[in-house]
């Protein structure tokens, strides 16, 4: 590990340092504001360090980690998301009698796990990152709330998440073990040679197909795709809002990035069996996710179902990866699939952060406003928040002028290129159904409220959360109207895949 390689993993070091300092600070003297400040500063420093890292760019730091433009972009995205959630959770946790500092500790370690996942090209680091993220999430999900009737929700959600997540980790491990037993290496790149050779030659291929499916099932669980989605609504609803936000954005983002790298490098998409399975999963995710959300009144559950649908859309783009690497790289058409995935991921993170952000600003640990009734007449009570929330919802529904539309457009183009007509038809139907429940919320915000339901004072006045909402709104509208620059950035990011 030369000095230069150390420089490359600077963000990881800084984030680890922040978590250690937070621990020491907590041990010395608990202060909510200070721990939040330290975490925020640490994340910002990590972000800045990316500039240094970017200069040395594509270089492999030990066979386990690869620091390339793909890694840098997603690291930046994760750090930004983490930063936003940290700043949102400060007003949220303000009036919690219990210890607040541990939350930031868990958050920084979870971010660390995510960073490791994004950079990994080897199963050991991938697995390490996944488990660090999961274990920290168990903690964050279980973070105690003090509202009487829902006090036991976080604990219930966390236990469910723990057991199921452990089972899915077991699947991944066993799959990898089977692959390792047959191919002898755990490195993504080398595995691709083994898999393509294994899948290709007739009889023996079932073994490889089963092993790969085991791994993919584990990943599908984390991305809450249909047959494995049952945990998502309960965990989203049970967990406190910052934890849900973190799970929805960073949790999904890191997992998707890892899946993308694994798929494009390992060439697992060559086999028709796996692409068929993934197509079926995608169709069911889109239809299932949208249908589940249709009449849902609890916004957190509704957003969880909609995230299932969005992961379904993402899967469509993922399926076109294979056709990307197949053709000669360099011409604009080839890297379309990868671009579509990364653009859609960025859009999804921005939209989810925005939606959860508004909910966090409006509620606090004592009283969570997650029922649709709480948002009635929001347009006339607080136009700014209503505008942001409507923009986020319309973007989730895929209406133009928003990044969501361009994301959906990208997936459409990828789908057309991969000629997946069935999936595109499902996407059109899914979006059609999706309109119902997004618009129901917007309409509910438009109908004036007869009795007065004052919004919490604490959260509103703080400038920071509103500042972040403004940033998110700009991040939603500007790429929606002028997506050129973001597209160019992603094109360079994806080249290195």
């Amino acid at each position, binding site marked *: 590990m030369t000095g230069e390689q150390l420089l490359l993993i600077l963000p990881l070091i800084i984030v680890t340092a922040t978590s250690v300092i937070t621990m020491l600070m907590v041990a010395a003297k608990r202060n909510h504001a200070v721990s939040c400040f330290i975490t925020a500063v640490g994340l910002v420093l990590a972000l800045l360090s990316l500039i240094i890292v970017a200069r040395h760019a594509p270089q492999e730091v030990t066979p386990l980690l690869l620091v390339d433009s793909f890694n840098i972009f997603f690291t930046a995205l994760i750090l930004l998301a983490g930063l936003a959630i940290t700043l949102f959770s400060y007003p949220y946790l303000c009036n919690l009698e219990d210890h607040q500092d541990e939350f930031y500790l868990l958050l920084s370690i979870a971010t660390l796990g995510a960073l490791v996942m994004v950079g990994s090209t080897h199963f050991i680091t991938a697995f390490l990152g996944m488990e660090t993220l999961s274990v920290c999430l168990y903690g964050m999900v279980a973070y105690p709330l003090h509202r009487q009737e829902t006090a036991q929700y976080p604990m219930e959600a966390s236990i469910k998440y723990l057991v199921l997540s452990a089972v899915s980790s077991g699947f991944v491990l066993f799959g990898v073990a089977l692959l390792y037993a047959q191919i002898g290496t755990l490195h993504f790149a080398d595995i691709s040679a083994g898999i393509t050779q294994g899948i290709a030659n007739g009889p023996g291929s079932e073994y490889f197909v089963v092993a790969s499916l085991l791994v993919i099932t584990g990943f599908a669980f984390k991305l809450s795709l249909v047959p494995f989605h049952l945990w998502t609504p309960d965990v989203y609803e049970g967990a406190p809002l910052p934890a849900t936000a973190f799970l929805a954005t960073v949790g999904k983002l890191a997992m998707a990035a890892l899946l993308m790298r694994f798929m494009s490098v390992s060439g697992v998409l060559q086999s028709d069996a796996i692409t068929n399975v993934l197509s079926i999963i995608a169709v069911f995710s889109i239809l299932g996710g949208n249908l589940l959300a249709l009449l849902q009144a609890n916004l957190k559950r509704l957003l969880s179902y909609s995230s299932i649908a969005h992961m379904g859309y993402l899967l469509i783009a993922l399926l076109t990866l294979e056709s990307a690497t197949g053709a000669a790289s360099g011409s604009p058409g080839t890297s379309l699939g990868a671009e579509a995935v990364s653009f859609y991921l960025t859009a999804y993170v921005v939209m989810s952060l925005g939606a959860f952000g508004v909910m966090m600003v409006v509620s606090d640990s004592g009283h969570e406003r997650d029922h649709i009734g709480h948002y009635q007449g929001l347009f006339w009570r607080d136009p700014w928040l209503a505008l942001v929330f409507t923009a986020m919802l319309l973007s989730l529904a895929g209406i133009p*002028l928003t990044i969501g539309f361009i994301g959906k457009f990208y997936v*459409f183009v990828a789908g*057309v*290129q991969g000629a997946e007509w069935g999936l595109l038809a499902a996407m*059109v139907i899914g979006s*059609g159904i999706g*309109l*119902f429940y997004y618009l129901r919320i917007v309409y509910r915000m438009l109908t004036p409220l007869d009795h007065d339901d004052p919004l919490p004072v604490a959260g509103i006045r703080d400038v920071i959360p509103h500042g972040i909402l403004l940033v998110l709104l700009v991040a939603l509208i500007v790429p929606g109207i002028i997506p*050129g620059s973001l597209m*160019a950035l992603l094109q360079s990011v994806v080249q290195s895949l």
Partner: protein
Amino acid sequence: MIVVWLILILMVGGALAWVTEAMDSRLPRLTALIVMLFSLIVVVMLCMNNFPDPLSPGGQWLVLEKWSWIARFGIYLQVGIDGLSLLMLLLTVFLGLMAIGAAWHEITERPGFFYFNLLWTLAGVVGVFTALDLFLFFFFWEVMLIPMYLIIAIWGHENRAYAAMKFFVFTQVSGLILLLAILCLAYFHFVQFGRFSFDYFELHNVVLEGRFQMLVMLGFFIGFATKLPAFPLHSWLPDAHSQAPTAGSVLLAGVLLKTGAYGLIRFAVPLFPEAAADFAPVAMTIAVIGILYCAKLAFAQTDIKRLIAYTSVSHMGFVLLGVYAWNIYGLQGALMTMLAHGLTSSALFMLAGGLQHRFHTRDMGQMSGLWAKLPKMSAMALFFSIAALGMPGLGNFIGEFLSLLGAFQANHVAAIFAALGLIFASVYSLWVIQRVFHGEFRVPGDHGAGHGEAHGATAQDLSSSEMLCYGAMVLGLVWMGMYPQTFLAMSEPTMAFLLESLGSFVGSVVSTAEVLP
């Protein structure tokens, strides 16, 4: 730059209207009025210096600008105005003014936000009529949707949530199908020419083979037919109209329906000549069914706005008929029907809105014999119903006659059945006059059949501002009826370009050249 200026004026105007609401509740409608008058002047100036003499049509493209937007996919901010889109702009701006006139007294709570939505819808529509880049076209196609949804959802009547949702979902899903079709076209341009492109002119030379071209064309057709609305996809219109506020109905009927027809003429048929040729008989059958079925439905309605909505579907059936006849008569007929129908249906909706504003009900069963108490309104209602049934000397007749003439050349049977629509049109139009304006005077609310003074006395006749709007529309219709050449000359070059770009392939057109000795 004129197009960009027009769209910017409308958008900034909208924002201004919303802001000035805080100062004084009467300011928003004034700003909206000024903005609309200014844009009307701009469009009229554009008409004047491009078409000085109606008899000698000039070159086709008046304005053609192109700026790069999303280089990755070869998407450009390409806008252009030619005769057809200029006429549509004229109609849009004129009806925008009428909508403001209609909303003058009706919209009282949150006027600022209302005029914001109104002007942004118009901006979206202006964009639709001028965009020549298919992605930009789709972009504006969706942009005009959200403010319209808000107008129906916030200021609508009792069942507005359902109607607004239905309107939004119908248009959005068909829009997605349209997007899919556009993308197929763009992708095949990439396959055949090496780079993505959404440019209207470049996409002309994309060659799709038989069955696939039909599918992509169907995608376009469904997208535009939902907005037209054509027969099977029309069921959102009556709900949207009966629940929308008057100004919303004026915009919806007068302008938004035309975007569907404009899309058909500009994109759906020229881009897929062979597929359109095979599809023409089916489209004309749909048009005929639309005309007759919706005329029958109109006759059965008691809600006045639903009745007018069904009549709009029936009239737009003529447009579809004219477009898919695909000869000069059919196209010009479709254009004239669009213009005339815009005025007629907006006026009828304003009248229906006026009645609802005065008697708080849309049910025709409860009111009759209004001629005695409201002579001016009844006279106007009579005039516009007669225009609606296609009385020669007014705009609708020219449109319907030319469409049928063109349709007859292409497909005899369809034209004959469509001509039956003329009879049904007279049946339901006069039935409305009979039901509401003739017979003894009875007003909703008073239960005795006699001369209910309770409600009737308070209902005052048309105010001067309303008379101004109706008067303008009467003049417009008479002008279109008596001297349509001004409008036909404007659209002549566009239609000629569209026709010779793929020849009038449809039907057995007896080219009259060799008949004459």
